[in-house]
Structure formats: C-alpha cells, structure tokens
C-alpha cells in the first residue's frame, strides 16, 4: 500500500465530493485484469486483500501479462444508507451499480475506470461477497441479467 498526498487549492465547495482525498493505493489483479485501487479507506484495502485469498487476486504487479488494466477509485462515505436494495443501470458505455441511496459505483470499461462512493454502513463482508464480485463481473463485461444478481 502506498500513500499519496495530492492537494486541491480552491475555496469552491466540493458539493459532489469529487476531490475527496484518496491517499491509499493498492495494486492487485482479478484474473487477467490488473487493478490499481485508490481509496480513502484502509478497510477497503483490507477487504481487497481478503478478496484475494480466493485466488482471484494477487497483490503486486509481479511482471504478469495482463489483458486489461483498471483504475478503481472508491471513496468511503460518512453517510449511512436509508435502504439496501441493489439496482444496476446499464448503458452502451457504463455499468452503474446502486446499493441503496448512498452507494453508487460506475464501471467504464472502455476507459478502464471504476469510480464510486461506498456508504458508511456497507460492511466489509458485503464488499467482499457481493460488491467486489459484482464489480469484477461488470469489468469483465457482464451482459446478462443473471450476471448482475448479487
């Protein structure tokens, strides 16, 4: 895990939380996809590591040949969800996963980006068993409703 300290020099309110600092960085892989995870939450890094114990993920770059590269940027929210239903919006270019009203994560396969916000109440277990596998399937280009079910 590396820690970076970028700065944002402005007084304009960041209403969308676009510029929340995400200083924690962690490299891993999911099958043939190399992923750089960038986050503000050490718990998400730890969950990623436990996800890797299922032999789908390996820490470090290690000289592997990868078919794809993805940049995951996940911001942990302070806010709690009012509900916990999953829904997915699929467009020609994006998958957007909603979990309740405070978790939203988009997957842009052509740009190799997973960008989103995770509500404070989403547990490590839920991230490991539901969210990460779902995101991994979206990164792989899931196309049937069956593949979207959590």
């Amino acid at each position, binding site marked *: 895990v590396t820690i970076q300290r970028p700065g944002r020099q402005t007084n304009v309110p960041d209403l969308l939380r676009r*510029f929340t600092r995400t200083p924690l960085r962690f490299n891993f892989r999911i099958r043939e996809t190399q992923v750089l995870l960038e986050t503000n939450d050490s718990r998400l890094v730890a969950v990623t590591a436990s996800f890797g114990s299922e032999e789908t993920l390996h820490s470090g770059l290690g000289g592997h040949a990868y078919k794809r590269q993805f940049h995951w940027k996940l911001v942990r929210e302070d806010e709690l969800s009012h*509900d916990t239903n999953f829904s997915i919006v699929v467009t020609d270019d994006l998958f957007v996963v909603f979990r309740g009203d405070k978790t939203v994560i988009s997957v842009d396969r052509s740009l190799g980006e997973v960008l989103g916000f995770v509500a404070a109440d989403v547990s490590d277990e839920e991230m490991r068993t539901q969210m990460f596998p779902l995101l991994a399937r979206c990164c792989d280009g899931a196309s049937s*409703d069956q593949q979207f079910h959590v």
Partner: protein
Amino acid sequence: MTRVSSIRPHTLHWHALLSFAGARCGLLTNSPELVSTLIGWRRDDAAEPACDFTLNVVVDHTDNGADRRPFFRGLHHIVTASFGESNVFVFDLLRSTVSAVVTKTVARDIVFWEGTLLPLIVGVLGAAIRILPVHCACLSVKGDGLLLAGASGSGKSTLSLALAHHDLSFISDDWTYVSSVEDRLVAHGMSAPIKLLPDSVQHFPSLMSQQLTRTLNGELAYELHPQKEMRLAVDRVCQPRWLVFPERGEFSESALIPVPRYHTRAYVEANVEVLPLQLVKAEQERKGLIERLAELPAWRFRYDGTPQFAARELMRLLETGKEIFA
C-alpha cells in the same frame, strides 16, 4: 433481487429534438408521456438533427416511489444524481450523455422537470456542452440582459421580482446559463421557479397566500413559477449587456460604482464547480466564456431600502442612461 435497467438507445423508440439553454438535446425514451411532458422544450430548428448532448430516459412503469431525497456525487467524468432510489441520473461528461431511469410519476411531472431536473442537467453537463452556469438573476430590457449577481441572501430574487414589475422581462432569479452563439454572448433561463426566502413576505405581502416548501438544499422558501403563479412577463433568452452586484447597506444615496474585470471573473469562478483533470478541454472553454463575461460593464449597486425602492433607483439610473446605457 437486483433491478437491472438497460438504457440502450436502440431500445428507446420515442425521439424528440429539444433545446435547453441553447444546447441542442436529443431525447430518446421508451415513454410517449415523457415526450409529451417536455413538448414545451422542443427545438424550433428540428430540421437540424445535430445535438450537443443526448438524454436517454427509461420510464419504469412498475415503480411509483414517492421518495425524492436528492443525492449527488461525482468522480472524474461521471456524475450521478438520484432522487430516492427510483429516479437516477448518470451524467457522462466525456460523452455528453445523460442516462436516466425515472418513475412514471416523475415522467409526467413538468414542475419537477422545469424546477429541478432540467436546471440540474444543464448545470452538471454545462462545461461539457459549452454552457457557463452563472449564479445570478437575469432580466431583459427588450432583449438586452441585465445580470444581478450576489451570494445567496443578497437580495437578487427580491430585486429581480421588483424589477419585473417595472416592465422588465424575467429570465431567471438564481442561475443564468451563458453560452456563445456566433461570437456573441447569450444568456438563457430555464423557467425554474423564483425562490424567495420566508422574510420576503414583508416586501411582497401577496406571498402570504402561498405555501413554503423545502428546497433542494434544505431551506424553507417560496418557490413560485414566474409566469404561471407570479404573472410576470417571461423570456428565455437575451444578450447580456450589464452586470450589477446589489449591495444593501446604510448608504446615504444610491449609487453605481464600477467594478474591475477581475472582480467579475473572481465572482463567477467562485460559483462554478471545479472540474477534474479529465475535463481539461471543457475547463479551457469555460475559462474563455468567463473571460468574455468579465468584459461586460459591471457595477456595485449601493442602496438602502426595500426591493421596490432598489428597483426604482436602478430604473432611474437606467432611464437617465448616464451609467448603464452609456
């Protein structure tokens, strides 16, 4: 059970060419009702099919959720806005596309579209489609635009309402959308409601018969449609000519005091969202628009009194033509 909403253009069989704040929008939807709701925004130049952005909307006929709690987030080129869990909007600023799922109740709700959703779409997508949202009211004097700028609570809305009773056409009271057409600046309104804080009732007693509502940012206010509820003359577009920063205080007489270009530039920049590195081209184009707006003649308008008094004083200065129309 995970709900999956597929928003793919080839499955959306209802099309319309619309125009918001001068931006040409191609609407694709599965709902003829939504096309009907937005009919008032249909483009006059429908023969020209090119669009600045695409709005793809799936109306979910199985859900009528009444929950409209707003939640906005953004990273890089993606912005999401949800109103409850049944109404979600995904903005892709690199591809100039908005994809949305809404309930059939929202699809029919023109007040919600005009008061909230359309300003949101133009505001969020603005930089990507060369539109500059400016935090100001706007009135039109025979097509020439007077912009009233100032922080929330500075009296923009009450002054613009008072001015609208002096035969100026009302365009907007809070956000005005500026673009460049054939090398001239154009200011647009979005038919959003006028937002008046509760204490406005002391200057406009007729508000007593209206209901206070909770606005998107959580404050209580009167939100009234300028044409339908306030009976004001309304325009949607004008050419901005002058910029005025109202300043109420204990001044012995009203005055217009010129402000330098950097003041206008700093004000506009302080009220637009900072864009991420991924949108550097949009940022450069926006800077160009801000610079051109900063070239407008601009003044502080110092006064002491009611909005009606301020409107009379500003009109007096307008009519003398010594300051503003020079």
